[in-house]
């Protein structure tokens, strides 16, 4: 509000003088048209306040002048005589100053301050009255001197004007001019009319030079200059809500005395003593608030422009180069710098500058840690109270994709006889594979039902919901758990999640672990006739044809299974339906066929499934029992694409669908059949594989000795092996044409040798070296290199306990785990020592039966160990056994290389010995030839005895060597024959 007033103040600083705020009035007065009489004394005396505005702009703002203008009389109140006389001469000719005595005043009714006043100063007197006064008083009359003029005055009335201030020397003025009289009588009325007349004849005033009279200073002083921005206030009256404005309550008058007790609280007046106190001191404060300011600035935007510069590097032309090359300075420089370079380069040769100490330092630090850091720590254990009793763990497999899921197969720990006895009895509980989740160690997620005890099984690497298992009765079993994948994946122990159901309406079946029936079993006649001991899916990058040729796998999924059994057979199975396979069934048919709700994924295989390739492992020597395979190992591994050409690898990776898998329930999708069109034969894939056997040949020690005596030293070692229980067989799976017929049959083993003193329990390839095998059986284990058949790279002295399984570490090339009959695990570290385990730890009080390792994350690696009590122990691998130490791969590679070279050397020595022996025989034959009937002399007897002794020494040495008590590089001490 004040803001609105403020401009008015500033814009009209001079309005106080004008006193005419309306613009109309102002504009009317703006035409000054100074009246001619404005400067005349008569005009001045009679001018009223309204005329004051016409006095010119120069004097307008002076308050003193203002007052003069307001007053009808001159400003000089007490004029001196001289001044009076001066003033009198300004009187117009027909006006005279006159003194009228108080008596005359009374007579003429002109009494000062009664009839005439300062304001009302004019009075009209009759001529007759004045003449009468002159007659009666004669010379004494005040009007005597004007007798003639009065008489001559044409009109009847004469104007008398009261001079209040004696301005013109006397107290009255008398007018003898009728025109002036008229003017005096009606001064205010006539003026505006005159003025209007004047404006019509308005002549613009001539410009005059302005003379400073000090007014500009006054104006300057009066001027209001804004030296700060105007303040703005925004006052907001809080709006009342409609409710507050019009409350619903209605008020009425009540008498407080009557209704006092009816909920009326009346606060009565009283005198507050507090207010008697006089406030003597006042605390007050003022807060200066910062002015609110809004600023903005504009910056110049320089728009981006693409600019470039092209330049050309300076080069010498050929001529210049040759010229410069001749420059002596250049020659000097090069000759001089040559030594410097030489020095630097030689230094670098002596000391490798690219060796970073910091990098090497880190690796060693990893190995450090407390004593607890290097031991296997029990992470979890799974054991079913009901089903695990008296069962042994036969196989453990980690789920390939879902974390924290582990499948365990259990079998009755019965001997062959017990089993045979129980054959006829009804089996009350089916053989099961347990699917455990780390979330719930009490109840398994799934049970997989099998027709008989499962010895081995494996998830399909490309279709993790498909599981193939090998039975004790020789059948291959297939499961499809696709429908239950969600249940496995569900991290919660859902069977205890009672919140899912309304109390009283629990679905009991939901909480129970489902039993899943197998999808298919192989036909009994065409399968194995002995328990299946090993089973493996063929890796997805190749497939094997019925001719045994490895070809490209165009479907890029694992579909073939390889199994082995005691019945000296290795079988290859195809899981895909044959070309133009089973036609899809209608829903009704399906229900009839499928009363158990089993997925129809492998319906086409059920009970009619035959292996497409059969390998019979014959004994190399006629008359001996055929090999009884326990374990096998092929060179190719899942995920290893080396066998494919580079081009194929790319297409392979491209084609690879993440959701892949051809094993679909035919309900969902039409069957995919084998597409072998254009499948190239992969030359790089090695069709040879190793088989670990159980030798049923029992040869007496005596026979062994016999063989030894008959054979050459080189062969002896071999023979020594042949009588071992666990043999290692190198076998080609490609059938070959028999020489005498067109039939194809499995070729004889390329090589075989008894290597361990018990049935082979494990045959595993190193994850780092494709050609390095770890074989275990009986009480020993050995490391072999593929195609180096003269002996093992590493063999141990027999352990005190039987070995049950071995497992390589997936991250450390030199580390493997050995499980033993007494429930202990030995950790071998080839870098640490090769004659004894680095760590030996007891895990279970019963025999361990199976080991399976899985890398969960870069920080965690778990080893699952099954024991013969049906329990699976999950052990966490300590960091020292998980993290490869600095250059471990290199060190282990070197070690294995060294050992391979040693084998070559040993072979070389064998040949030498053979030669020696032949030479000796030749010599003895010569001796015999020279004196055949000669009675042996003492020397001859000595030689023979020495030879025999040497033979014995060599035999003893070879035995000791086999037991690991002698190094092979040592040569037996041979007594010279002569």
């Amino acid at each position, binding site marked *: 509000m004040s803001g609105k007033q403020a401009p008015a103040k500033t814009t009209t600083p001079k309005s106080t003088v004008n006193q005419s705020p309306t613009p109309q009035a102002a504009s009317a007065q703006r035409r000054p048209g100074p009246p001619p009489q404005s400067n005349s004394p008569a005009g001045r005396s009679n001018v009223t306040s309204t005329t004051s505005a016409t006095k010119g702009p120069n004097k307008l703002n002076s308050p003193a002048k203002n007052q003069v203008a307001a007053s009808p009389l001159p400003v000089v109140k007490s004029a001196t005589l001289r001044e009076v006389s001066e003033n009198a001469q300004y009187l117009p000719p027909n006006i005279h100053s006159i003194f009228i005595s108080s008596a005359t005043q009374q007579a003429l009714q002109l009494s000062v301050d009664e009839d005439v006043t300062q304001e009302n100063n004019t009075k009209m007197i009759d001529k007759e009255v004045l003449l009468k006064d002159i007659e009666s008083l004669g010379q004494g009359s005040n009007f005597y001197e004007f007798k003639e003029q009065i008489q001559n005055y044409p009109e009847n009335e004469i104007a008398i004007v009261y001079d209040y201030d004696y301005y013109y020397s006397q107290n009255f003025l008398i007018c003898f001019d009728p025109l002036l009289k008229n003017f005096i009588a009606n001064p205010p009325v006539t003026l505006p009319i005159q003025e209007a007349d004047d404006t019509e004849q308005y002549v613009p005033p001539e410009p005059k030079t302005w003379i400073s009279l000090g007014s500009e200073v006054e104006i300057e002083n009066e001027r209001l200059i804004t030296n700060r921005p105007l303040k703005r206030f925004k006052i907001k009256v809080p709006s009342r809500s409609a409710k507050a404005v019009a409350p619903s309550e209605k008020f009425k008058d009540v008498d407080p005395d009557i209704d006092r007790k009816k909920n009326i609280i009346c606060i009565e007046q009283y005198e507050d003593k507090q207010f008697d106190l006089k406030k003597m001191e006042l605390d007050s404060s003022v807060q200066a608030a910062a002015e609110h300011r809004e600023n903005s600035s504009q910056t110049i935007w320089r728009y981006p422009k693409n600019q470039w510069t092209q330049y050309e590097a*300076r080069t010498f032309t050929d001529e210049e180069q040759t010229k410069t090359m001749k420059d002596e300075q250049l020659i000097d420089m090069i000759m001089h710098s040559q030594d410097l370079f030489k020095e630097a380069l030689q230094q670098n040769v002596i000391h490798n500058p690219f060796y970073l100490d910091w990098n090497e330092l880190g690796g060693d630090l990893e190995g450090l840690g407390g004593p607890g850091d290097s031991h296997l720590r029990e992470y979890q254990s799974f054991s079913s109270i009901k089903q695990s009793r008296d069962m042994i763990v036969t196989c453990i497999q980690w789920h390939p994709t879902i974390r924290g899921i582990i499948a365990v197969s259990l079998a009755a720990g019965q001997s062959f006889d017990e089993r045979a006895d129980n054959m006829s009895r009804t089996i009350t509980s089916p053989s099961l594979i347990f699917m455990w989740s780390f979330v719930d160690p009490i109840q398994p997620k799934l049970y997989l039902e099998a027709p008989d005890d499962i010895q081995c099984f494996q998830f399909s690497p490309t279709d993790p919901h498909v599981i193939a298992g090998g039975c004790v009765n020789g059948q291959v079993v297939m499961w499809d758990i696709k429908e239950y994948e969600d249940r496995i994946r569900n991290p919660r122990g859902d069977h205890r999640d009672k919140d899912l159901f309304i109390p009283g309406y629990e679905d009991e079946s939901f909480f129970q672990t489902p039993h899943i029936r197998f999808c298919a079993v192989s036909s009994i006649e065409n399968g194995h006739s002995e328990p299946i001991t090993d089973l493996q899916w063929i890796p997805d990058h190749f497939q094997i044809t019925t001719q045994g040729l490895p070809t490209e796998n165009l479907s890029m999924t694992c579909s073939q299974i390889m199994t082995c059994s005691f019945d000296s057979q290795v079988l290859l199975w195809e899981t895909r339906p044959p070309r133009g396979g089973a036609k899809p069934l209608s829903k009704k048919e399906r229900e009839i066929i499928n009363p158990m709700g089993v997925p129809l994924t492998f319906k086409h295989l059920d009970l009619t499934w035959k292996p497409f390739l059969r390998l019979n492992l014959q004994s190399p020597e006629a008359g001996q029992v055929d090999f009884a395979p326990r374990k096998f190992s092929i060179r190719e591994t899942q995920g290893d694409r080396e066998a494919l050409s580079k081009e194929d690898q790319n297409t392979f990776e491209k084609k690879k669908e993440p959701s892949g898998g051809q094993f679909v329930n035919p309900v969902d999708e039409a069957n995919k059949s084998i597409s072998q069109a254009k499948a190239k034969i992969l030359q790089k894939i090695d069709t040879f594989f190793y088989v670990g056997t159980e030798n049923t040949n029992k040869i007496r020690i005596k026979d062994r000795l016999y063989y030894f005596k008959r054979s050459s030293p080189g062969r002896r070692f071999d023979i020594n092996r042949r009588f071992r229980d666990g043999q290692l067989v190198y076998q080609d799976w490609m059938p070959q044409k028999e020489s005498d017929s067109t039939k194809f049959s499995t070729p004889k083993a390329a090589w075989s040798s008894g290597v361990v003193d018990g049935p082979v329990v494990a045959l595993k390839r190193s994850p780092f070296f494709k050609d390095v095998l770890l074989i275990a059986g009986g009480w020993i284990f050995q490391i072999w290199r593929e195609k180096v058949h003269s002996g093992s790279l590493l063999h141990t002295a027999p352990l005190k306990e039987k070995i049950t399984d071995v497992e390589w570490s997936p991250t450390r090339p030199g580390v493997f785990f050995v499980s033993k009959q007494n429930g202990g695990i030995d950790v071998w570290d080839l870098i640490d020592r090769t004659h004894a385990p680095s760590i030996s730890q007891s895990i279970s009080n019963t025999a361990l039966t199976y080991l399976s390792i899985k890398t969960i994350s870069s920080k965690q690696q778990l080893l699952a160990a099954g024991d013969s009590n049906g329990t699976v122990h999950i052990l966490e691998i300590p960091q020292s056994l998980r993290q490869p130490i600095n250059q471990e791969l290199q060190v282990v590679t070197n070690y294995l290389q060294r050992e391979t070279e040693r084998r070559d050397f040993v072979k070389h020595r064998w040949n030498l010995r053979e030669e020696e022996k032949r030479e000796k025989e030749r010599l003895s034959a010569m001796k015999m030839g020279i004196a055949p009937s000669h009675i042996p002399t003492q020397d001859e007897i000595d030689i023979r005895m020495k030879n025999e002794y040497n033979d014995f020494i060599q035999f003893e040495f070879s035995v000791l060597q086999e037991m690991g008590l002698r190094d092979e590089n040592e040569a037996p001490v041979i007594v010279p024959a002569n």
Partner: protein
Amino acid sequence: MSSTVVSTQQAEIEETMKRIQTHKGVHGFVVMSNDGSFVRSTIDNSTTMSLTGLIRTLSDKAKSCVRDLDPQNDLTFLRIRTKKQEILVAPDKDYLTIVLQANEQH
């Protein structure tokens, strides 16, 4: 007389260059003038271009550094040891020689 001396010396230079190049691990030899253009190089053109441009400024900088520290001193040789290779630089008044020695493991 002097021309024969020069020609013999030139042959000697070629010999020297060859000797340095056959040294173990050496895979580049560049002779350049101080205005940035190279006289002789055994590696490909673009690499030489970038190498000469960058190394020259570095060696100038190193030279000025050495001289600032002690005005009577001068830079004679510069070895830049990197993860993959070692760059040996021999600066002179008008010319500059660079030898690259690579880590054989890379």
